[in-house]
């Protein structure tokens, strides 16, 4: 069952096309992440779902109710859609409790208890209730903003880069807390971000936007492994892309023959491997890997990214340069001779 349906949404600002024929279904209870570089139109799309913007054409339905179509538009205040912007946007003239209680219809002790419960749910200490927004840290402001949006029991929760103002450690902790909280509350969530790591980790459904168009959507793992095009591949993580000749389930490329998921396609095409699919071993004579030389080592603690150059088995000349991920403990130093082998299948881009 889909909670939210976006059907052919279009929006232009002057000559600039902000949204170009956007179609997307968001299943009930899911966490959908819209990811894209800045200026891709993802914030416009989110604001349109919230009801702060209206499309030039197209329609939008939530749980079967039409929110916007060509003749009709439900204003933001009747949508019951929670919205948490990047900077929290707390009302500066209200205390934490007043901010959280803003959307509540309750009064008296029932109201106080609900506010207390909401503060508890976002792990805010009860004695913060009477603080002012300017006395809170960025993370605390974000929690208040989230509690405020949750208070009205939204049918849908929209998060606009809510973690980008937080520091790294806090960011992943907040992300996990928010994900768990929304899942427990059973709230369908849409998050917008430009951070692919955040997107892959938070999403059950990922939608990639570029230049106002929704270029691909699906399960994050599928998008990561089987992107439709090279740009998406690079946007979602480091990628090794090279030309190959495909023949009966094998790609013949600089790495030698590599298995592919080509569905019977044969001919010339671009293939993609993720760096973690390439495995390194020491250069042992008679091994079946592809010989290479380590040229650069980027140590990052638990992992290490190596740049290697392939050595043609025939001429011994240095060839294509590739990224390989390796455990930080056993990373060979630059200059080492290594063997490369491929785990799993390479992905073939459709020939355009």
């Amino acid at each position, binding site marked *: 069952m889909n909670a939210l349906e976006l059907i052919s949404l279009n929006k232009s600002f002057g000559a600039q096309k902000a949204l170009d024929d956007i179609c997307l279904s968001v299943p009930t209870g899911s966490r959908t992440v819209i990811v894209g570089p800045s200026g891709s139109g993802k914030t416009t799309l989110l604001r349109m779902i*919230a009801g702060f913007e209206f499309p030039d054409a197209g329609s939008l339905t939530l749980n079967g109710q039409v929110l916007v179509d060509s003749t009709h538009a439900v204003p933001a205040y009747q949508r019951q859609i929670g919205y948490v912007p990047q900077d929290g946007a707390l009302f500066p003239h209200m205390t934490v409790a007043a901010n959280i209680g803003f959307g509540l219809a309750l009064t008296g002790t029932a109201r106080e208890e609900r506010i207390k419960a909401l503060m508890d749910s976002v792990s805010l200490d009860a004695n913060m209730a009477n603080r002012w927004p300017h006395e809170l840290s960025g993370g605390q402001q974000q929690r208040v903003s989230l509690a405020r949006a949750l208070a009205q029991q939204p049918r849908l929760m929209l998060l606009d880069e809510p973690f980008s103002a937080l520091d790294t450690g806090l960011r992943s902790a907040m992300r996990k807390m928010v994900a768990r909280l929304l899942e427990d509350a059973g709230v369908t969530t849409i998050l917008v971000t430009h951070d692919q790591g955040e997107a892959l980790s938070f999403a059950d459904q990922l939608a990639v936007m570029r230049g106002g168009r929704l270029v691909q959507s699906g399960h994050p793992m599928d998008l990561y492994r089987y992107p439709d095009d090279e740009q998406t591949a690079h946007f979602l993580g480091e990628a090794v892309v090279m030309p190959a000749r495909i023949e009966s389930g094998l790609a013949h490329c600089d790495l030698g023959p590599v298995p592919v998921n080509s569905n019977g396609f044969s001919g010339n095409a671009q293939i993609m491997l993720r760096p973690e699919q390439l495995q390194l071993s020491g250069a042992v004579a008679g091994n079946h890997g592809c010989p290479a030389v380590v040229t650069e080592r980027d140590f990052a603690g638990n992992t290490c990214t190596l740049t290697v150059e392939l050595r043609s088995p025939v001429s011994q000349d240095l060839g294509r340069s590739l990224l390989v991920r390796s455990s930080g403990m056993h990373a060979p130093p630059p200059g080492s001779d290594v063997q490369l082998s491929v785990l799993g299948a390479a992905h073939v881009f459709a020939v355009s």
Partner: protein
Amino acid sequence: MLPETLPAQVAAASSASLRLKPRALTGRGGSWVVALAVGVSLLSLLPIAFVLGVSWATGWATIEALVFRPRVAELLINTVLLVLITLPLCILLGTALAWLTERTNLPGRRLWSLLAVAPLAVPAFVHSYAWVSLIPSIHGLPAGVLVSVIAYFPFLYLPVAATLRRLDPAIEDVAESLGLKPWAVFFRVVLPQLRLAICGGALLVGLHLLAEYGLYAMIRFDTFTTAIFDQFKSTFNGPAANMLAGVLALCCLAMLTVESAARGKARYARVGSGSAREQRTVLLSRGTVMLGLGLQGLTCLLALGVPLLTLGRWLIAGGVEVWGGGELLPALLQTLSFGVAGALLTSLAAIPIAWLSIRAPGKLQRLLEGCNYITSSLPGIVVALALVTVTIHFARPIYQTTLTVLLAYLLMFLPRALVSLRAGFAQAPVELENIAQSLGRSPLRALWLITLRLAAPGAAAGAALVFLAITNELTATLLLAPNGTRTLATGFWAMTSEIDYAAAAPYALLMVLLSLPLTALLYHQSRRTAGR
């Protein structure tokens, strides 16, 4: 995200006014705001329409004879010199005092900041009265500039101080981290952010200079407005006064154009995250402290000491008998009721235009604001004259009623409410209104609960300014008030016209006392930043 959201807001706002029904209802703001703003502005066009209509009726030959003559050139030079000398002095003084009281460790800065607002409690023509009775020979341009600066600099001090208090301190931190010295931070980062406040304040002062009658009449300095008044007194409703008013209207148009160019297109809603932190304080050296104290002390002596000493002298000289006669109390009550009603009416009328100017700046909104500025920059006597003519011809039942007086106040003092309200609205990011809507509040409720609350200090400042203006208003009240009503200002003017300075003193004292609590409130409100 900025490039995405900025055009989005503009587009949404314009679509709200142009699109089909559902969009107009749901798009930010909605067409009713536009309708209200247009309504208020059309009303404010009344005096202009009157001037144009009268010019049309007069004919070109007569206009030429009345406008192109040495007397008009002389008045023009007087008025332009007054503006060109007074405005920079007011900006310098207002900004310097605001910086000293808001951003330095000057001893007693709370008190100084109160004292910098206090001169507003003394009506301009009472300042003039004080100086004339202190130095009877004082007259002409130098006297005009002196009294004008003293009477009007708080109009710059107030918005500049309020803005200084609300700037995002992080921006200054960043500037300093980019290697700017403290003075460079002030000139390159702080001052540009004060532009809106300085432009607004300067326009307000400039319009006063063009419209004030009592101040200049008393020190015998001829400006357009005094000349129009004299002309009117000698030839009731004659073409000469109307043609001078036409030239004056052109001057106001020029001033409006300059201000609008200086203000630019920048919008000043804070874009940073969360809520702002405390402002930081500059530690002054001993020498600078002395200099600062000297400036504050001298300003205080001239702007408060002189009027209070003179008033005290006349009150002692007049003794108990000037308080008798039974005319004082009714005048006080009359002034109070005019002031409260006028301030409420004007503030309410200003809300739609102020809101449009921040949330949907565009050609329409500038046109509307322009209408209001031009009207309010016309001298009170022209507004009054227009209302007299129009009510006699088209609305006889409201001729010489309180309603007409309040209408004149609305037309004359709308920009006071507008400037403060606009600055207030600029402090309330549109995103907060959006959030309130996403939490189930209708656009109107969101406006009330969030934007108007955040703009409340600005709105209160605006209402207080209007109240002050009404308690001190002279010319329009003289002309429009129903027969037999006497306010403090018209009572004071009647006494001074008879050179009975001692009998005028109680009226002046009451006007000052009446303005004091509001000046204090204004001071208090402007000190409060949101949430503190």
